[in-house]
């Protein structure tokens, strides 16, 4: 126990220890705060942005390409819209993408990974074989191909990313569930006549939760990064919806003079991905798992 102050013995539950490790980890706390701030900004966006009318297709040519100042804290874009406003709304699109992708990819990957690890045999061979194939495809190339062959928009970007993302969870959960399936308590449950369903959901899955949650947090960062890259390449949200990746792409035409048009949304993406990454790192230390 790495502590200098005495602790009540009954307080040393695994959960308490984990929480203790988490709160003692400054980067984890910073990461949590960053993630929380992104989520709050996204939820409260309509209430807090300085120029709500600049979210859509508004034009404000008088202030076009204004440098950051007290009126426009992060400057304005090529039609004079406030970049701060659009960045805050851009977080909404990023988080929507994260939720949309992970809500499907994580359960799907986890279910397949569980099944592969527990049942073994041809189920295992089929699922691990499939994940191996998916690993050989550069994810961005595949997402670009799928996203564009279907119509490029947010939902299709989501579909394209989801199609690839489940494999990582499947691999991870497979590894954990395979080792847990060999444990005595699983054997005991089987001998006691428990059904496959019971063993999978009550004996094995709870042991995978910490790994899954760490991976999911880290993944949030990469989904944001990935979505931003797709829209930077022109395969994301349709204008005028504010989206961080396409804002960077738009601003790039006016470099190097109008640097704020690129740096503001660019660093907003970086802020969000960094936050999720630090938080995920902290959770990893907290649960003491390898992901």
């Amino acid at each position, binding site marked *: 126990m790495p502590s200098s102050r005495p602790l009540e013995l009954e307080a040393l539950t695994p959960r308490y220890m984990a929480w203790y490790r988490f709160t003692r980890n400054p980067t984890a706390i910073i990461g949590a705060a960053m993630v929380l701030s992104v989520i709050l900004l996204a939820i409260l966006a309509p209430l807090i942005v300085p120029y709500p009318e600049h979210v859509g297709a508004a034009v404000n040519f008088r202030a076009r390409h204004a440098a950051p100042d007290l009126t426009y804290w992060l400057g304005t874009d090529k039609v004079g819209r406030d970049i701060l406003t659009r960045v805050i709304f851009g977080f909404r699109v990023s988080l929507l993408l994260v939720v949309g992708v992970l809500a499907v990819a994580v359960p799907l990957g986890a279910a397949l990974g569980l099944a592969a690890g527990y049942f073994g045999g041809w189920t295992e061979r089929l699922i691990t074989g499939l994940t191996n194939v998916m690993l050989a495809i550069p994810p*961005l190339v595949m997402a670009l191909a799928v996203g564009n062959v279907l119509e490029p928009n947010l939902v299709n970007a989501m579909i394209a990313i989801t199609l690839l993302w489940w494999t990582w969870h499947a691999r991870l959960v497979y590894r954990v569930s395979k080792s847990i399936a060999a444990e005595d308590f699983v054997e005991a449950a089987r001998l006691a006549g428990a059904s496959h369903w019971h063993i999978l959901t009550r004996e094995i899955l709870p042991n995978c939760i910490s790994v899954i949650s760490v991976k999911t947090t880290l993944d949030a960062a990469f989904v944001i990064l990935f979505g931003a890259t797709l829209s930077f*390449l022109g395969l994301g949200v349709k204008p005028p919806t504010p989206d961080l990746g396409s804002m960077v792409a738009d601003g790039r035409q006016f470099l190097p003079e109008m640097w704020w048009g690129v740096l503001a949304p660019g660093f907003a993406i*970086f802020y969000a991905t960094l936050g999720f990454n630090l938080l995920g790192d902290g959770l990893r230390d907290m649960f003491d798992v390898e992901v």
Partner: protein
Amino acid sequence: MQENYLYTFAKRIAGFVGVLFVLSLMIFVLARVVPGDPARIALGPSASQEQVDAMRMEMGLDRPLLEQYVTYATNALQGDLGRSLISGRAVSTEIASLLPATLELVLVTVILMALLAIPLGVITARYRNTWIDNTGRLFSIVGVTMPSFLFAILLQLFAAYFLTDWPIIGRIDHSLAAPTGPTGLLLVDSLVHGRFDVFLDALQRILFPALALAMSGIGQITRITRSAMIENQRRDHVLTLQSFGVPDRVIVFRYLLKLSSIAPLTIMGLEFASLIGNAFVVELVFSWGGFASYGLNAILQKDLNAVMGVVLLSGLFFIVANIAIDIILLMLDPRLRLKEAR
């Protein structure tokens, strides 16, 4: 020992061929079932229905899907990836002319990764939990989380404001008559022809894109090298060497580094998939004009034949890189050889 190598590789390559087969089937089916008629894309919106039908016959699109795939796969094995729907030229010719640019970029990237990440990993492990280690940690987190397009743009901005003479666009200054052949890699060809001006220009231009591309890999590999070094420091043979009074320098470079490069090399192989993906972005930002730019254009123009070629070749790229890394690992790690022999 020689036979074991061969057996291992036969097994590996069989596995990779399987992967490539499924990949090609997947991308083929995807390209055929999606809305958007390749014949229509090739002829444009103004063509009549009869023309489109005739084109479909010519492209074999009226045959059963399985037959189409067999034809496609047979041709692909002979290096024929069909014709681009947009330009009408053979996809394989178009790709072949652009491949060296990307190959050169990727090679320089991998060299940069190894040159920067492994020493950084060794240093951060040596000075564990000091400010050096923390700085290294911050650096690698930034490398992993920063979008590669942002990093590429930051490098360009830096050059635009502080290194005003530094060329940041394209592979080569077009006023320099760059020598052609034998490899297509400008850095190599210029040296072969003794053109140091070309070599310097090309080197200057490739440095920033390669750095932007290497960033995320550097971040990961630094961390993995570091943890491998720390883990291996506690091994018995290392402790024995230390107790014999063998200097740290010798232990690190002669014993630890070899043992600790196994994990990062494995990761580097997996990293190749995202490296190829990021090349799409970096080539765009630096107007590189390689295989990835071609792929991006093909995708944006829905040039399905070219897209299939690009995806297949990306997969092949990944697989070849991983075979190469497997070979290096087998040479590095005698335990692997023993395991495979059993």
